[in-house]
C-alpha cells in the first residue's frame, strides 16, 4: 500500500513538469507586458527603462535559456518573484490558498451533502414525478452562468432578505462563506446528483443485487449492504474530478464575491501580465487537481479490492 502511494505520488512529477512546460510556452507568447500593466496609464514610462527591466529580468534571453532557468527555479521549489509586488510568488499564493481551499471545501461539502441524497432519492423512484422534478432542478443548476447565479443569490439573500452578508472574507466565518460556496457548489451538486442517480440505477439493476434479493433481504438491507458502497465507488470519480477542478472553477465566484483566493489572484495577474504569478497560480491549481485525484485513486484502492495498479 505504501509503495502504491509513493508510486502514485511520484507519478505526479512528470505530469507537473509537463504542465510547467505547457504554461511556460503559453505565456511566453502572450501579448502586452508587465511594465505597461503596472499602471493605469502607461504613458510616461521610458521605453529604454522598460528594455532595461526586460533585460534584467531575463525576458530577452532565448526561450530555451529562460526555460532552463525556469525549470532550475522550479526544481528548488521556487515559484519566482512577482513582477508587480516583488514578493515571492509562493508567499502570495500561500496567502490565497487557505481562503480558496475553504471556499472549495465548503462548495464541495454542499455539493455532496445535497447532491448525493438527491440523486439517491431520484434513483429509488425512477421515472416518478419526484425523480423528474429533482433532475430538472439538478439540470437547471447546471444551466445557469455562475456569475449570474451569484448576483441573483446576493440580491436575494443579502439585499432582499438580509440573511447573509454579500461579500467579505475572514470576518464572519461561515456566514460570509455561505453565498460564495452556494454559487460555486450548485453545478457540482447538480452533476453529482445526476451521477449518483445513474450510478444507483446501474447498481440496482446489477446481478448481485438480484442475488441479494434472492437471499431474502428487504430493500433497506439491499440498499445498505449492497448498493450504497458500490454506488459510491462509481460516484467517487465524479467527486474527485469536480473537487479537483473546483479551485480553477472558482475564479468567477471569487471575483464576484471579492473572495481572496488563488483564482482571483490568477485573473488579476493575467490582466496585469504578472507572468510569474500566473504560472505559479496555474501550477498550484493543477497540483491541487492532481493531489485530489491521486487521493481518489488511493481511496479507490482502499474501498475497491478489484483495483490493482502497478
Amino acid at each position, binding site marked *: 500500500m505504501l509503495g502504491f502511494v509513493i508510486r502514485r505520488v511520484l507519478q505526479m512529477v512528470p505530469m507537473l513538469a509537463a504542465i510547467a512546460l505547457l504554461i511556460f510556452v503559453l505565456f511566453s507568447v502572450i501579448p502586452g507586458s508587465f511594465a505597461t500593466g503596472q499602471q493605469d496609464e502607461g504613458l510616461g514610462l521610458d521605453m529604454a527603462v522598460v528594455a532595461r527591466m526586460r533585460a534584467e529580468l531575463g525576458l530577452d534571453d532565448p526561450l530555451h535559456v529562460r526555460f532552463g532557468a525556469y525549470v532550475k527555479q522550479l526544481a528548488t521549489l521556487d515559484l519566482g518573484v512577482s513582477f508587480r509586488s516583488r514578493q515571492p510568488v509562493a508567499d502570495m499564493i500561500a496567502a490565497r490558498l487557505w481562503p480558496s481551499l475553504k471556499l472549495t471545501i465548503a462548495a464541495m461539502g454542499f455539493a455532496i451533502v445535497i447532491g448525493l441524497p438527491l440523486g439517491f432519492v431520484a434513483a429509488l423512484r425512477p421515472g416518478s414525478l419526484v425523480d423528474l422534478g429533482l433532475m430538472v432542478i439538478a439540470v437547471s443548476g447546471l444551466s445557469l452562468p455562475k456569475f449570474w447565479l451569484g448576483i441573483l443569490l446576493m440580491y436575494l439573500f443579502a439585499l432582499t432578505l438580509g440573511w447573509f452578508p454579500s461579500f467579505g472574507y475572514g470576518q464572519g466565518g461561515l456566514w460570509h462563506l455561505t453565498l460564495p460556496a452556494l454559487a460555486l457548489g450548485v453545478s457540482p451538486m447538480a452533476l453529482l446528483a445526476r451521477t449518483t442517480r445513474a450510478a444507483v440505477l446501474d447498481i440496482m439493476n446489477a446481478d448481485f443485487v*438480484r442475488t*441479494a434479493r*434472492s437471499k*431474502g433481504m*428487504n430493500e433497506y438491507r439491499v440498499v445498505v449492504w449492497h448498493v450504497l458502497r458500490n454506488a459510491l465507488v462509481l460516484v467517487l470519480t465524479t467527486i474527485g474530478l469536480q473537487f479537483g477542478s473546483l479551485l480553477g472553477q472558482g475564479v468567477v465566484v471569487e471575483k464576484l464575491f471579492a473572495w481572496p483566493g488563488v483564482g482571483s489572484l490568477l485573473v488579476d495577474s493575467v490582466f496585469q501580465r504578472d507572468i510569474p504569478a500566473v504560472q505559479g497560480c496555474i501550477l498550484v491549481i493543477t497540483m491541487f487537481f492532481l493531489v485530489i485525484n491521486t487521493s481518489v485513486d488511493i481511496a479507490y484502492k482502499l474501498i475497491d*479490492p*478489484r483495483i490493482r495498479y502497478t
Partner: protein
Amino acid sequence: MSASQPLLQVEDLHIALSTDAGSFPAVEGVSFEIARGETVGLVGESGCGKSITALSIMGLLKPPLGLAGGRIRLTGQEIQNLPAAELRSLRGKRIAMIFQEPMTALNPLKPVGRQIAEMFVLHQGASWREAEQKAVEALTQVKVPAPGRRAKDYPHQLSGGMRQRVMIAIALACEPDLLIADEPTTALDVTVQAEIVDLMKELCAARGTAILMISHDLGLVTDICRRVCVMYAGRIVEQQDSEQIFNHPQHPYTQGLVASLPRLGMRAQHGRRKLMEIAGVVPGITAYPGGCRFNPRCSRATEICVKVVPELEALGDGSLVRCHHHG
C-alpha cells in the same frame, strides 16, 4: 402437509411483457410440479421464457415483466400474492437460486465469506461472528480448498468455478427445499462444468433439496434431472422422463432438437449424415404466431396448427405433449 403433496406446484402461469406497443405474453399457461427431492429440468432456447418462469417463482420479476395469472404453490401454500415480507422469508430459506454469471452475481466489493455469512444473519439470526464461521464451513462443504483463506477473498480473486461454488454455498446455506439453478454452468469451461454439476447433484441429494434446473443444453439437463420440461416460445411443449426424451421425443420441436444436434459418437456409429435442420427462426415475444407457436417451422403443420392452440396432452407413460400431431 402430506408426503404425497408436491413441493412446488406451478399452475397455469402467465407472465406478461408490457411495452409501449402493448402487453405481450412472455409465458403462457405453464404448469408443472416438483416433488420433494426431485430434480426437474426446464429446457429451451434463449427467450423461451424459462428464466423468467424461475424468477416468478422467486417473486423477483421486475417491470416491464409482470405476473399475469396462475398460481404458484409451495407445499400447498399459494405464494404468488404473498406480502413482500413473507415472500422474503421464503427466499433463500426455502427456495434458493443460483445464476448464470457467478462474476456479476456476487458483490465485487465484499469478501465472499461475508456474502455467504449474510444468509445466516438474515435467516438464522446469527451474529456476524458466528455467521462467518459458518460461512467457512459452507465453503468446506462445496469443496473449496483452503476455505478459511478463501472466505476473505473477493470475487475477482476467484476462478469462475470457485465463484460458482460460492454461489452454491450461498444458495444451500439455509438448506432450502428447492434450488433453482439458472444455466449454472454456461459460463464455465466443460471440464469445470462437469465438476460443478456433480457437486450440485451430490449436495442436493444429501440434503433432500429439490432442483429446478434451467438450461438450453438438453444433454446437461437430462444428466441431472429425472424429468424434463421443454419450453418453446413461452409454453411448455413437452414433459418427459429424462431417459425417454432423447430416445422418444414426442413433440416435433423436441424431435428436431435431438436430431439436429451433432452428438459425439454419432459419426462413429452412423457415419457423417446431414444434420436435420429446423427451418426458420425462433420468433420474438412480440411476434408469436397464432395457434401452435411452432407451426411456421414445423414440417407436420396443418391448418389446425395455425388456428387452434393445442392442449398439453397426457400420454400414458406420464409424459405430456402439446401437439396436434405428436408422436
